[in-house]
């Protein structure tokens, strides 16, 4: 392709054909982005629409995609329903406790594994990461039996109490949070440690006064991750809790609001939306930390 094949008297234009091509590509990008956004946002938007409908409007089936007589009755009913509030309370308690435990375990472990090179630390880190791969769907049955067995042995009722979840959930959160923290800690320059140690800090002080403040974004990201995982957990509570007052939100909504053959979809959608609210709110305000938590694992690993 030589320049000689070009026509010599092209009209003078300020924007070349390259710019036009690029603009066209941009327009198509937006078109497809809108298509995908519609795909991704249809369910939550639909949840919202349905939650504002009365049962009458739902069964009238005029149009599923719009509300003509919006009402907050569903919200009022759900938010005053003692069952639902119990679910919410249980979820909140479990999540907060699990987050605390996770942070208390992960941060020191990450610090030790990333900074204090000791015999086997590398294998340990990899090993922990590998165990993260073992899914809850493989563990729930043996754990069920183990807890039943512990009940016989100690007399403490584990099954069907929400606090058993506080024991189990850390298996889901601790390995990955440790991994995230290891990534963040590793990116802190060694000179910082050395300066602090020369200044007379012990390892604990190094951790609390230097690492934690500097790695705060990572800690926030890990906390958000732990909270979201705990809040959304479905399998373990399904298996381990059955009485209505012990259920957490996801299980509560799915099992109790769907009674028999009559589904009160207005309430179900309201319940689901409210159940999705805490992670969504956190996401709205702390989106960058949320995403950092996700990508930290793979890109730093």
């Amino acid at each position, binding site marked *: 392709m030589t320049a000689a094949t070009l026509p010599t008297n092209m009209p003078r234009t300020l924007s070349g054909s390259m710019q036009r091509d690029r603009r066209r590509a941009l327009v198509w990008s937006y078109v497809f982005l809108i298509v995908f956004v519609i795909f991704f946002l249809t369910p939550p938007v639909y949840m919202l629409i349905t939650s504002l409908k009365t049962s009458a409007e739902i069964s009238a089936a005029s149009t599923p995609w719009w509300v003509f007589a919006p009402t907050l009755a569903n919200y009022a009913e759900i938010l005053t329903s003692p069952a639902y509030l119990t679910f919410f309370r249980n979820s909140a308690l479990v999540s907060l406790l699990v987050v605390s435990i996770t942070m208390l375990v992960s941060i020191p472990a990450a610090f030790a594994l990333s900074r204090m090179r000791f015999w086997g630390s590398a294998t340990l880190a990899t090993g*922990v990461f590998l165990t993260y791969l073992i899914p809850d769907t493989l563990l729930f049955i043996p754990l069920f039996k183990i807890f039943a067995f512990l009940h016989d042995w100690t007399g403490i009722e584990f099954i069907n109490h929400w606090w058993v979840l506080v024991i*189990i959930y850390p298996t889901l959160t601790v390995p990955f949070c440790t991994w995230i923290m290891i990534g963040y800690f590793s990116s802190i320059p060694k000179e910082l440690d050395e300066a602090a140690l020369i200044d007379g800090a012990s390892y604990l002080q190094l951790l609390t006064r230097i690492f934690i403040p500097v790695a705060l974004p990572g800690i926030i990201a890990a906390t958000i991750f732990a909270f979201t995982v705990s809040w959304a957990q479905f399998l373990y509570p399904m298996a381990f809790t059955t009485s209505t007052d012990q259920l957490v939100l996801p299980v509560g909504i799915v099992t109790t609001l769907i009674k028999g053959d009559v589904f009160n979809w207005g309430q179900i959608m309201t319940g689901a939306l409210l159940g999705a609210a805490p992670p969504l709110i956190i996401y709205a305000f702390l989106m960058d930390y949320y995403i950092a938590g996700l990508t930290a694992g793979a890109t730093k690993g």
Partner: protein
Amino acid sequence: MTDRTAPSSRVPIARRKNSLRLWWRRKSTIAFAMTLPLLLIVVALVLYPSLYAFYLATLNKSMERFVGLGNFAFLFKRETFWMVVRQSIVFALSAVIFKALIGLIVAHLVHNVPAKGQRKWRGMLLIPWVIPPAMSTLAWLWLFDPSYSAFNWLLERAGGSAVPWLGDPYWARFAVILVNVWFGAPFFMIMYLAALKSVPEQLYEAASIDGANAWQKLWFITLPMMHNIIAITVLFSLIVTFANFDIVRVLTNGGPVDQTHVFATWAFRIGIESNDIPLGACVSLFMFPILALAAIFILRDVNQRTTEG
């Protein structure tokens, strides 16, 4: 540390205490202590139960007798079991492929948009991942409702006919895969977007000058440079999708007629709902092969990284 192990009579107590304290202060001890809780959790609540699962699978239903591989033999004769195997594999493979593809495409779209606007697109597109899957699957359940499906409403308006989304086995499988793809694609998008941003712009400029068009740039530069992250995400996702419980349980509960059961939901049905723990454990163990495969790949990758870097 002979002071501690030597016969105590002659050694003054002050010195013994000192060396004990020294041992306590040693870096490796502190480090080990700091990782201990993590280790305990992992060993007691992950490793031990997984091994225990193997043992459980060898017991009979009332867990009194040892039946060896009897449970496995029983499963292999059941037609439902083979359906579950097929369904789990098809489900995992197709969902992951679509998730990766959509994630890659959407990541490219977002990357093309000028940087200032990217944030809000990214924000909107990640929402499916943020909503607890149990909740969002309820929304899909409602969208697929046999009588009131909003999709069917649109289809009928457009001149088509209503689809039995959850009633017909093939549509039900499609629905399960669709929901899974809907839920998981944003994750891939975010990962791939980060990877796309890490490819230096100058490489694309050099390729422009070398004569590459957009497709060639994708094939020769973008994809090879993203090769690592694509492998990691696909591997992770295979494991997670293969072990998926929430979506199938809420959407179809394995139906119609067990045609959408995957290992996780079937294990739950057998182990918890029908109270046959050993058989349930047996079913859930079939997730082990894929785990082992993934572990091999990861270890190989870690090995490669440490020998290279």
